[in-house]
């Protein structure tokens, strides 16, 4: 992780060109940036995690790997990623299958925009 022009550092900035097509907000953009950063560094993270968990390796190696892992950019962490509503960027009460908040889901379901979704009644 050294050198004059670190190619990874550009990952943590929002892309200049808008590449997503849903409700756009700074939260959505930030979350999308985090997702891309995680995708790009996932292999490296997993390699480091392997080194850390392998008890047959010398302790120094494992500690070094742990350090490198903790010093990686926050955006490369999967825990930073948050499922947000794609229709209004709400962060809570998201139905994973529809990528929508419960209210947006209700509105779309009642309007018949979601194939196969029907209001239960018995």
């Amino acid at each position: 992780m050294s050198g004059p022009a670190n190619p990874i550092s550009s990952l943590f900035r929002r892309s200049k060109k808008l590449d997503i097509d849903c409700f756009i907000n700074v939260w959505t953009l930030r979350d999308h940036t985090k997702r891309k950063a995680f995708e790009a560094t996932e292999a490296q993270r997993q390699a480091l995690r392997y080194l850390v968990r392998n008890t047959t390796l010398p302790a120094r190696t494992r500690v070094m790997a742990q350090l490198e892992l903790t010093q990686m950019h926050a955006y490369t962490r999967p825990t930073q990623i948050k499922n947000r509503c794609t229709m209004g960027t709400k962060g809570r009460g998201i139905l994973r299958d529809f990528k929508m908040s419960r209210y947006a889901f209700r509105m779309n379901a009642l309007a018949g925009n979601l194939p196969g979704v029907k209001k239960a009644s018995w």
Partner: protein
Amino acid sequence: MSVPRARLLELMKAQCQLFSTTYNPTGIRTGNKILRQRLRGPALASYYPRKLINDRSLLEEFSPYDLTTTREEEEDRLDHIAALKARGKGAPKKKKEAPVVHVKKRK
């Protein structure tokens, strides 16, 4: 009737060979479970729907057909900018040199 441990270990070894798993009788943590995990990145990164087309790509796609098109929003924007410029209120031109920094003199 108890089975000797050595015999059980042999069985375990045979099992491992048969099902091509790692023989690890002492249960040492080798971190292999990390290597077995699938990569989640592609699935996570495709959460938000990607932008597939925009005005420009659409025009390029249909350029061989010689169609006349209007882009109202873009024209409005350009008109607005032209009006601003006419009033002398347009955005300044980009500077080519680095701006001169004025340092305040200490009294």
